[in-house]
């Protein structure tokens, strides 16, 4: 018999018109995954890259060795950060629809990834985000009006009008500039961590990308350099199942988890329920301690779901079932933390509604303030000469000349 090789094309489980199908997902029950010592050898903990660390069970109770045992005030802060992120996203989405900003990207359904990680890290740790990590800014205390001004490219825009909406940065808050090109931040975070180790700093670097971007060479450079130099870094693959219209199988997730890329490079690989705040918090603590104590990097795969469109320029109804998210087996991160707090007797639907209303009012007031500094189309506007600044530290002659040409052009009007 002659066997012929046949090109395999990864199958997308459900397209428009199909019923949601998440039978491909390998889940572990809450509490069953072992928690190794943070100094454990990679080869002794490889199963962690195939299992799924979960803490909250179906009855909203935290179970198992990964329970970070956070107290109720801390959990309420977490809920507040996640809810603010969502309310902010909702508002900016609607504002984009009204034409006031050009573009927006929501993190709907993925709020726990940024919020839990930022809360579990130290203020000195340097964050290298992707474009769906707005929760990092929220946790680190950036006034949301600053984020809005960036989205508006107005006179208070931290980027001076040079970046698409959501490409924030915040030096003081130790949050790196978002490129807009995918995955480039991953090996940069490793370089930052290498420098921290060279200088003997205790701070670690943390970076995020989507499972789709993990196909880029930069992802592999990051893992390789992190492994070779045992860099104090946490590398996160946010597996939200979708890279615009392309299912995660096309990024290589069909046969093996993304976390399993870690052990292949000699790096600890953890797979975590990305919608379980407590589980994300716990694995972050574990990986941060591992990095800080000189035991090297960790690759974490957050299993989550991109509940929103990729961006305001995208329409997911064209490539996935409309009700896909309703079938997602890991639920919603805010609902799950809320359920946990209610089960603890520390929260209620009424308090939740009141908090939502408070945050909506805060976001509305911030928006009002933000637009007072101008919009992309309404005054006050940024001075166009700003486009010539910061190309270099000092403006070289050819740019001074071009700046003068523009001034003359604008004066002639």
């Amino acid at each position, binding site marked *: 018999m002659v066997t012929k090789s046949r090109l395999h094309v990864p199958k997308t489980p459900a397209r428009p018109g199909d019923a949601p199908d998440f039978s491909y997902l390998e889940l572990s029950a809450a509490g069953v995954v072992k928690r190794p010592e943070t100094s454990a050898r990679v080869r002794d903990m490889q199963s962690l890259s195939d299992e799924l660390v979960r803490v909250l069970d179906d009855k909203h109770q935290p179970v198992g060795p990964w329970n970070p045992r956070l107290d109720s005030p801390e959990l309420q802060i977490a809920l507040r950060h996640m809810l603010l992120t969502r309310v902010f996203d909702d508002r900016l989405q609607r504002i984009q629809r009204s034409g006031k900003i050009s573009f927006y990207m929501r993190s709907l359904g993925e709020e726990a990834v940024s919020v839990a990680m930022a809360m579990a890290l130290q203020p000195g740790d*340097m964050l*290298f985000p992707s474009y769906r990590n707005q929760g990092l800014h929220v946790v680190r205390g950036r006034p949301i009006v600053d984020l809005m001004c960036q989205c508006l490219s107005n006179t208070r825009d*931290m*980027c*001076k009008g*040079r*970046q698409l909406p959501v*490409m924030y*940065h*915040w*030096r003081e808050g130790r949050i*790196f*500039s978002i*490129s*807009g*090109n995918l995955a*480039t931040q*991953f*090996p*940069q*975070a*490793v*370089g*930052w*961590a*290498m*420098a*921290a180790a*060279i*200088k003997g*700093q205790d701070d670690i*670097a943390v970076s995020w990308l989507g499972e789709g971007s993990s196909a880029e*060479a*930069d992802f592999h*450079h*990051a893992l*390789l*350099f992190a492994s*070779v*130099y045992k860099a104090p870094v946490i590398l996160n693959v946010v597996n939200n199942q979708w890279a615009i219209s392309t299912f995660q199988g096309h990024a290589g997730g069909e046969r093996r988890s993304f976390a399993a890329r870690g052990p292949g490079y000699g790096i600890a690989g953890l797979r975590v329920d990305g919608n379980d705040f407590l589980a994300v918090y716990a694995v972050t603590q574990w990986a941060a301690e591992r990095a800080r104590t000189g035991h090297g990097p960790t690759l974490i795969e957050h299993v989550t779901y991109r509940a929103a469109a990729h961006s305001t320029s995208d329409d997911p109804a064209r490539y996935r079932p409309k009700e896909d998210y309703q079938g997602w087996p890991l639920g919603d991160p805010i609902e799950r933390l809320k359920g946990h707090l209610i089960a603890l007797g520390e929260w209620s639907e009424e308090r939740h509604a009141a908090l939502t209303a408070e945050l909506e009012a805060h976001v509305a007031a911030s928006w009002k303030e933000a637009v007072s500094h101008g919009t992309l189309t309404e005054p006050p506007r940024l001075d166009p000469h700003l486009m010539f*600044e*910061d*190309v*270099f*530290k000092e403006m*070289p*002659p*050819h740019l001074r000349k071009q700046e003068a040409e523009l001034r003359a052009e604008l004066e002639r009007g």
Partner: protein
Amino acid sequence: MAQRNMIHALNSAMDIMLGRDPSVVVLGEDVGYFGGVFRCTEGLQRKYGEHRVLDTPIAEGGIIAAAIGMAVNGLRPVAEIQFADYIYPGYDQIVSELARLRYRSAGEFFAPVTVRTPSGGGIRGGQTHSQSPEALFAHVAGLKVVMPSNPYDAKGLLIASIEDDDPVIFFEPKRIYNGPFDGEPDKPAVPWSAHPKGEVPDGHYTVPIGKAEIVRSGNDLTIVTYGTMVHVSEATARKLGLDAEIIDVRTMVPLDSDTICSSVARTGRCVIVHEATRFAGFGAELSATIQEECFWNLQAPIMRVAGWDTPYPHAFEWEYFPGQARVAKALKTVMEPA
């Protein structure tokens, strides 16, 4: 003061900067224990340790990205890309990240990375060890682009590059690492010790980025060139008995167009000489700039001498290389009376 070839001059620059500034690190393929395939980093790891002079995996994209991250964390990395022909896996990190980080973050973040890379042909390197890709970097907003033509400038410009807060792509014309080369491969090699620019001070000094140098004053015409071709141009003009003014561009970005244009305005004739391919090469930028500034002073069309618009062929090295014959033809053409 000591006689140094370009390799020793570059080594001295890194040695001095590693010694003066604890934030300086050197990284690249084979740069550590071995001291680099061209020996530019020889002895530095032994002297400054494995944390300051790092051997890296063969991943140019990773090298540049790691250097960027290090720079954001306060280091001043000098990254070696073993051959300019290997730089392309790092091109995205250079173009999209290194060049634009200061801009996109409105000055909050920047990465003072120097990327050193040997370039150019004349060493029987075939199409993967001979390229001159400087135009690909000069075209990118946010990068400084430098190419020295002698040991004195190499050391001074490399120190200036490492001290610069902007990213610098530093091309090293490897054909003249060991001695100046006049374009005639069959003649015995000449060492740098026979050349005045082989005199290199021991200590710290800089050659400013953004300043061209008039290496020979003259009245007949202006030759604008850089790297190896400075020496080929000098030899050719001498043989033709021309009183040429020869300008070594040294820095492509920022370009010292004042020095170049005031010379051409005076001589009225100009030949641009580089090793890189001609089409959309850096010579086109030079020619356009000079034409815009000096059109009414020109007595002849500006000529360009360059490598042919083909990949660099192994077997036809000297038919490809823009040697004295090609330079001479252009010089004679621009000297023809109007």
